[in-house]
């Protein structure tokens, strides 16, 4: 037991990487090595375009992962994002569709596109507010609340689309945002937006009071409250923030496909949770980083696209996801325990 007193004073003087930095580097290293292994096994995998695709094909899930990670760090789940993606997409289509349609599914409210997406975003934020109301005011566990709001959001989308989709009678401008290419490259506007979101999120997480309070709340809710942090207010903001991101993702996806489909974003909430967990975000709160989450997404993308490249049946993806999350959690727990021994 004497070693405890010996090592304690030396600790702060050593400039040591934080545990989060350690886990993020670990995740990044795993992501890169998995990519290299996949390059050896799968023909045509080692290409620059493929690296770009790994990121651009997953912009939606990565963007959702930002909001979900912040909430997880604060000790709360958000499983409603997939439902919100469907809801905001369907709402934006419904609001923008012209009023003279041949049948119920081609008749909308005929709002101008700008107003339509603003209202759709409000719809998304309403679900976020609902999450906050139930979690913060009623103190109901977030996993149950957000499972419920996920179904409510998707349920509203299904009612509006009669369980299928709306894609007719849309204004010209509707497909613009989702298909806009920037800088004359194949990279689309939503991907750029996702990149910006990542940068801002990393800055907020590292350098701003808002981000640090999030960690504090997750690490020790009681202490946070006692030191004057308005926990309810902060978690409300986080839910609105996450729902807002999901709303924008839904609107952009609807614009990309020029349709509002009530099953869009199905299981996206689980993928967003999975990449956060792969990236080392702790479910108990107070630990994790957006960079880790990003590399978690890369791991998932490499594993699933390598499996597709090896012509495994698509049914394998469920097993691969399960194994990846299991290994990630076990190794991260083990590595942290070893490091802080």
């Amino acid at each position, binding site marked *: 037991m004497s070693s405890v007193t010996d090592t304690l004073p030396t600790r702060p003087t050593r400039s040591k990487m934080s545990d989060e930095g350690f886990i993020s580097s670990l995740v990044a290293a795993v992501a890169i090595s998995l990519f290299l292994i996949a390059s050896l096994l799968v023909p045509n995998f080692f290409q620059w375009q493929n690296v770009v695709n790994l990121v651009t094909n997953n912009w939606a899930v990565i963007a959702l992962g930002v909001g979900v990670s912040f909430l997880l760090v604060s000790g709360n789940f958000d499983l409603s994002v997939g439902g919100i993606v469907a809801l905001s997409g369907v709402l934006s289509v419904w609001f923008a569709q012209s009023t003279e349609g041949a049948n119920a599914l081609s008749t909308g409210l005929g709002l101008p596109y700008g107003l339509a997406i603003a209202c759709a975003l409000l719809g998304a934020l309403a679900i976020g507010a609902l999450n906050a109301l139930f979690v913060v005011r009623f103190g109901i566990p977030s996993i149950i609340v957000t499972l419920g*709001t996920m179904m409510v959001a998707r349920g*509203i989308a299904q009612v509006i689309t009669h369980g299928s989709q709306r894609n007719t009678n849309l204004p010209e401008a509707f497909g613009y945002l989702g298909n806009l290419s920037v800088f004359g490259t194949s990279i689309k506007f939503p991907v750029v937006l996702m990149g910006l979101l990542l940068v801002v999120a990393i800055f907020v997480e590292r350098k701003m009071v808002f981000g640090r309070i999030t960690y504090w709340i997750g690490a020790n809710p009681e202490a946070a409250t006692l030191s004057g942090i308005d926990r309810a207010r902060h978690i409300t903001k986080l839910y609105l923030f996450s729902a807002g991101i999901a709303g924008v993702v839904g609107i952009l996806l609807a614009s990309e496909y020029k349709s509002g489909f009530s099953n869009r974003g199905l299981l996206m909430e689980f993928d967003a949770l999975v990449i956060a967990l792969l990236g080392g975000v702790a479910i108990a709160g107070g630990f994790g980083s957006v960079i880790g989450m990003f590399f978690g997404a890369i791991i998932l993308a490499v594993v699933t696209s390598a499996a597709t490249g090896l012509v495994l049946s698509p049914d394998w993806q469920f097993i691969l996801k399960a*194994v990846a999350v299991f290994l990630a959690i076990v190794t991260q727990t083990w590595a942290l325990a070893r490091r802080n021994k």
Partner: protein
Amino acid sequence: MSSQSKTAELSVTSGAANFLRNYYIYFVLVAVVALLSLANLDQFALFERGNFLNKRNIINILRVSAPILVVAGAFTLLMVSGYIDLSIGSTMGLTAVIYAMLAINGMPFVPAFLLTMLAGAVLGAINGILVVRLNITPVIATLITLSLFKGIALLLVQDGVSAIKSGGGLKMPAWFNDYGRDGVFLKLPAAFWVAVAVTLVLIVVQNRGKLGKYAAATGGNPTAAKLSGINTGRTVFLLYVIVGVAAALAGIARSSFMSLGDPLSGDGMELTAILVVLLGGTAFSGGEGRVLRSFVGALIIMALTVGMLTIVPAYYQTLVIGAALLTAAATNHLVSQKGKVS
């Protein structure tokens, strides 16, 4: 419920609160059935099944309810102990596939039935090991197995077909339907009576058995439970195995009812189970909940969903279940608050 009787002595108002807490679920059931019966279904004429309260309709509802009824009790005990299993839908899908595969390859009813139950126990044990031995948070551990079991179930069904069913030289045996459909008593199938029997056994376990007491103690205060010599790890492990077996029974019931082994047949079951258990007044944090009330909760949800189908189009279902889940969670919260105020 000694704590309840103690509060009842303290003040008069808490008597009403307790009454509300203990019996509101039956009022909800009566109210739902009454409302659905009052709705003149001929007016909507979507399915032309006539009145809600006719014999055929009731038999039909109870028949399709067998899977959730058989799961509700075991799930309640698990939640009472403060744990959760999100994988029951996948367990159900996987066991449905296993059962159908055994049957279609010529195994008789009894061994196929027992083997599938064993498979359910193994799947439950995997959850138990992840949670108890490897100490992974229950939500995450069972999310992992949700994905894993679903993947295995999908892989067991060959590419190009959506489920295990007659075709390609193999034929589902004639008895396959009987368990889920053939009326054995009061025109209700064996699957329903198995669900009733399982629930009765679990009620006895909860009221008289050690496991029930241990579960409540683990959920109420894990540290105190451990300190008083309860092996909480073994209790939780056993409960996961029981939930796995119950999910297997649900898988068999569903598979037999639909006469195919559909790997996705249990999708959403975890949500329904959570909804039913919450509706029955089980505390999310553990420590409190009754098997019987969850059974009634399951009846309410099935009456509601089947009843709704005759009134509104199917695409309202997700919204209704989601709203019911939120309402149940809020009511559950308010009712338990009322009990606490006194």
